[in-house]
């Protein structure tokens, strides 16, 4: 069951551009999986190869043990929810949903019950006679999902499913997509450039960059332990400091000498050696600000800086704090007027501190 959809060393070039450069992935049956990356990273090309619109130059794609690499789109047990939905404008909602079943020449009765059930699931029954042009963005999206799912595909591909919706609708559809996935249990593969979308929709995420998969993990693992600075910046915000490892400690910690910030103690990695510079990563919300030096001994990393800039975002506030040549971003998760913590002014001198478990060494070479 672990290897339901297998992508085996797939490559695809357009001219001199290596769009997909040797991608291998195994996706479980029923999993909600995301391909996440910036535009041009190859995620859309990979999706089009899964759907059958592009043929890979080399490599194989297997679904449930069957090699589908050579199959045409109409022959694959895969359906797609297109980015702009690609609903047929000359057909009603009902006929759009029935299209796939009609193409496979199912009996009339089966088409009727299948379409009606799917329209009920997506709460579109009352709109069944309308044309796509008469629907709202969210309704069109649901038609696109119903049109794909009614064929009972083994894999459902969703290309930037929420990109065309406005913010409020997006949050609503996020919940709805999770709901539908739970109900039908089909393998969902999302393609998105939005990390928030990927995190809330998927069981696992493959982060892609320049045609390769950089890291595959569950959302919280990606966030907490990114293996490279690319993943760290792409998923959430991060502060990076480059320095030399000075002391490898037991329990996986390492002390790194950073110009202007002293020698913070952070979580290490097996790739760290004492001769090569490394990069350490700290999330802005993990940094606390105090007016005096925190008194927790040398297990806490603390350094001084001057507040250069601040911005208030309602649920949180962000500060740019200069320490030597570094500008550190710190994020305070509280309202401006609530008690506790500090509310430093511009130009104020503050102490920044973070626990060694909140900083970690990431690979230097993968910087984006």
């Amino acid at each position, binding site marked *: 069951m672990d290897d339901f959809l297998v992508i085996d060393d797939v490559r695809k070039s357009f001219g001199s551009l290596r769009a997909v450069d040797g991608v291998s992935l195994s996706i479980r049956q029923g999993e909600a999986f995301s391909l996440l990356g910036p535009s041009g990273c190859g995620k859309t090309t990979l999706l089009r190869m899964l759907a*059958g*619109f*592009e*043929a890979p130059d080399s490599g194989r794609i297997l679904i449930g043990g069957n090699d589908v690499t050579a199959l*045409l*789109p109409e022959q694959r047990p895969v359906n797609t929810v297109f980015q702009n939905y690609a609903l047929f404008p000359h057909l009603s909602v009902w006929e759009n949903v029935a299209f796939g079943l009609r193409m496979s020449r199912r009996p009339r009765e089966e088409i009727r019950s299948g379409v009606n059930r799917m329209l009920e699931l997506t709460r579109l029954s009352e709109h069944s006679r309308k044309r796509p042009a008469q629907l709202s963005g969210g309704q069109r999206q649901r038609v696109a999902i119903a049109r794909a799912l009614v064929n009972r595909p083994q894999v459902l591909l969703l290309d930037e499913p929420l990109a065309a919706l406005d913010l409020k609708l997006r949050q609503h559809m996020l919940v709805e997509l999770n709901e539908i996935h739970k109900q039908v249990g089909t393998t969902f593969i999302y393609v998105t450039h939005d990390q928030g979308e990927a995190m809330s929709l998927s069981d696992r995420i493959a982060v892609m960059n320049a045609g390769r998969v950089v890291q595959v993990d569950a959302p919280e693992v990606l966030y907490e332990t990114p293996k490279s600075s690319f993943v760290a910046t792409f998923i959430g915000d991060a502060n990076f400091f480059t320095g030399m490892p000075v002391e490898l400690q037991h329990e996986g910690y390492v002390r790194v000498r950073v110009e202007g910030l002293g020698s913070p103690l952070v979580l290490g990695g097996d790739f760290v050696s004492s001769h090569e510079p490394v990069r350490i990563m700290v999330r802005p919300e993990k940094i606390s600000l105090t007016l005096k030096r925190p008194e927790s001994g040398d297990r806490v990393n603390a350094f001084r800086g001057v507040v250069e800039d601040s911005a208030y975002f309602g649920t949180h506030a962000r500060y740019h704090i200069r320490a030597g040549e570094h500008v550190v971003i710190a994020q305070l998760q509280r309202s401006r007027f609530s008690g506790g913590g500090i509310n430093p002014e511009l130009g104020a001198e503050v102490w920044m501190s973070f626990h060694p478990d909140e900083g970690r060494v990431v690979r230097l070479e993968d910087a984006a």
Partner: protein
Amino acid sequence: MKRSRFPALLTLGVVAFLFAPLIVLVVNSFNASRFGGEWDGFTWGWYEKLWEAEEVWESLAVTLKIALSASLASMLLGTLAAYALHCFRSWLQGLHSMLVTLPLVMPDILMGMSLLALFVITGVETGLLTIWIAHVTFCMSFVTMVVLGRLQDFDFTLLDAARDLGATRMQAVRKVMLPLLLPGVLAGGLLAFTLSVDDYVITFFVSGPGTTTLPLRVASMMRTSRSLPMINALSTILITATFLIATLSFRLQRRA
């Protein structure tokens, strides 16, 4: 995904079908054989004969005179019509739009026939003037359609921007709108010109003595087998001219 080759092959076939007769025509204009069934050797002879055929060149002069004046007039009327259709929404423009569209789908013979009826009943002598009127009438709608297409792409906030930057209304029209619309108007004029040069049916109905346009001349030459090879030569010249005008018109429309 492998795409079907069928549409590409058919396109190739259609293009061949469209061009084969024209190419044969061009080739035969240099063919010493009278009927062009086989190649009898290269010759400039038909062009020389054509050069000496005074009446052909007289017809060309008549045709050009009409085409130039008719396309100018239809450019003016057509541009005004397009402007009115684009800027106003009223019952008047509903009627206007219907009247402009109808000549586009009216068979030539009906247009010629009805203009002839008008001239016969009002007692107007058919000649240059009646041909000119007929040509303006059917060219105008085509110009309107081309300019209307251009107007629909025109961003009218540009006029507001010009006013905002201190231009008077006239200056805004002259310095911003005209330069942007001019290619469309010229393309419409070129289309009118080619349609006017090309027209046979309508001209045939409203022409009089001494106003034999080029297509009328070609038609009468087609009836005498002696002058058939000369038509090949004449056609080659006309096709070349059409090619140049069409290319020019494409350039104009792409510039925007």
